[in-house]
């Protein structure tokens, strides 16, 4: 799906006031979630095509057109890295962002149960996930206590500095 098509799709969703839309076609997946009228942000998450285990993160600044083949057009309000944090209905959601570049793992080891699941209560300092960088596993800790409301990245995906990982609903 090229940039023009994505733009037309977003315009269509806005026109029809559709809140959420998901499409899977081949190894391309689009998930669009819109905020309330007050915030009017639209976010596009596109899973990059996985080629022999290595993924790339094509990222675009909000102002200009995006490079082929996979685009993440973002509005001025959204962080271009991945979607979610601007979702307006959760205004008191604390967004846990990646402090480093690396690969996100949701469990301590392959096959093991994930550190946290949606709905789990977490305490400040609790390990939420691992990010592997340069062969070292870094534990990412919750900066606040609360409940895991969202997980923005899937297991074994590359993340960059500032990528949103989890949304914690503070209690």
């Amino acid at each position, binding site marked *: 799906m090229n940039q023009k098509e994505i733009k037309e799709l977003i315009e269509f969703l806005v026109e029809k006031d559709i809140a959420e839309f998901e499409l899977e076609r081949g190894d391309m997946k689009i998930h669009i979630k819109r905020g309330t009228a007050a915030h009017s942000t639209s976010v596009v998450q596109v899973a990059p095509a996985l080629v022999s285990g*290595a*993924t*790339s*993160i*094509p*990222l*675009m*600044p*909000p*102002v*200009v057109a995006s*490079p082929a083949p996979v685009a993440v057009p973002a509005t001025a309000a959204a962080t*271009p*890295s991945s979607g979610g944090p601007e979702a307006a209905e959760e205004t008191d959601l604390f967004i846990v962002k990646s402090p*480093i*570049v*690396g*690969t996100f793992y949701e469990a301590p080891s392959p096959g093991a149960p994930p550190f946290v699941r949606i709905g789990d209560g977490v305490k400040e300092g609790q390990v939420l996930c691992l990010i592997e*960088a*340069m062969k070292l596993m870094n534990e990412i800790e919750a900066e606040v206590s609360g409940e895991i409301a969202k997980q923005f990245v899937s297991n074994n995906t*590359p993340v*960059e*500095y*500032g*990528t949103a990982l989890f949304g914690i609903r503070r209690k």
Partner: protein
Amino acid sequence: MFNKILVANRGEIALRIICACKELGIRAVAIYSEADRNSLHVRFADEAICIGPPRLNESYLNIPAVISAAEIANVDAIHPGYGLLSENANFAEVCDSCGLKFIGPPPEVMRLMGEKEKARATMKKEGVPILPGSDGIVSSAEEAQEWARSVGFPVIVKASAGGGGRGMRVIRGEDELPNLFHAAQSEAAAAFGNGDLYMEKFIERPRHIEFQMLADEHGNVTSLGERECSIQRRHQKLVEEAPSVKVTPELRERIGGILVKSLADLGYMNAGTVEFLMDEDSSLHFIEMNTRIQVEHPVTEVTTDVDLVKSQILIAAGEKLSSVLTEPVYFRGHAIECRINAEHPERFTPSAGKITALNIPGGTGIRVDTAAYTEGVIPPYYDSLIAKLVARGRDRAEAISRMSRALEMFVVEGIYTSIPLHQRIVHDDDFRAGNFDTKFMERFLAPKEDAAKS
């Protein structure tokens, strides 16, 4: 050939490297700090990864972040550009151990050339003319006195452990030596934790001449001639040109030949620049070697038709010089480059902010390397270079007239730039006559200050 290269830099040089990658059909991966999210090098890369907050230490100089980005993007090689990590031998070693090809010389050679004293000693052994120096640390004022007498005043003492002008004193006579020597020692000890000093003959009015070298990974080395970079302010180059009006074909060939042999002996690889000071009788003295591509590489490119950055990539991919440079290097015409900085043209204060209007000059013989664009914001965290304006002509006079014309048509609004300063320089009689040395800018700026005082 590489499939993907990570560009470990920002701004105009990152864009320059991306251009070379595109022309070679190689995917370019950009890294950026949060402050550079909307920059041109991110826009034109095939992939881009945010590696940290604005501060250099947390982003572009953060080796784990850079390497981690290289790993998740699955690149084959890293081009470090200039500045930043380009002369960091530790970084080059980390690249090696991670199976990432570092586009530059081997770490040991980088390290050797990075230590000024060792570099001088090495080049001296190779027969490269060097500035008479103390051959090691000068431990006392008496020793300094003796050495200075044998070499002749003026001399300069420099800190062995660091630079940037600290622990440095010019000594013009025996009487003032003891005081200045001890002052330099104290300053060096305070600045670097090490008061060791070495000494060099001091040239009052030197010209800065540097030679561009290219070496493949099979022992072949060639010289691409010299550049003159005497127009500097506080050791920052403002205007560069190729060739130098003071370098004769004989000198060019002789020094070029010595350097080719020296670099081959050293096992140098990839691009590098050897810097000299030329004294009043036109002899060259080695001062240091920069083991990377330089800011002013375009003036060599436009007079030799050699794409230096592409050459760097091809060399790192294993190509021999004979296939990189398909014909003997020739020098044609004259080129001048002005480094356009985002700073006030008189106060030299940095001018960060948004560019509201931009007209980049074009036309015959003009090349502009820039990452600036309209509505682009120049962030305050990095150096102030925003564009390199290069004018080429069949001779120096034509190059100057083209530069003058292009400066006039270079419009940048929203921030201050050094364009007005550059215009004044290219209209200066001494500049036009080729009559200058590294003190040119001091003299050029001084009368104005005196006039302001009176």
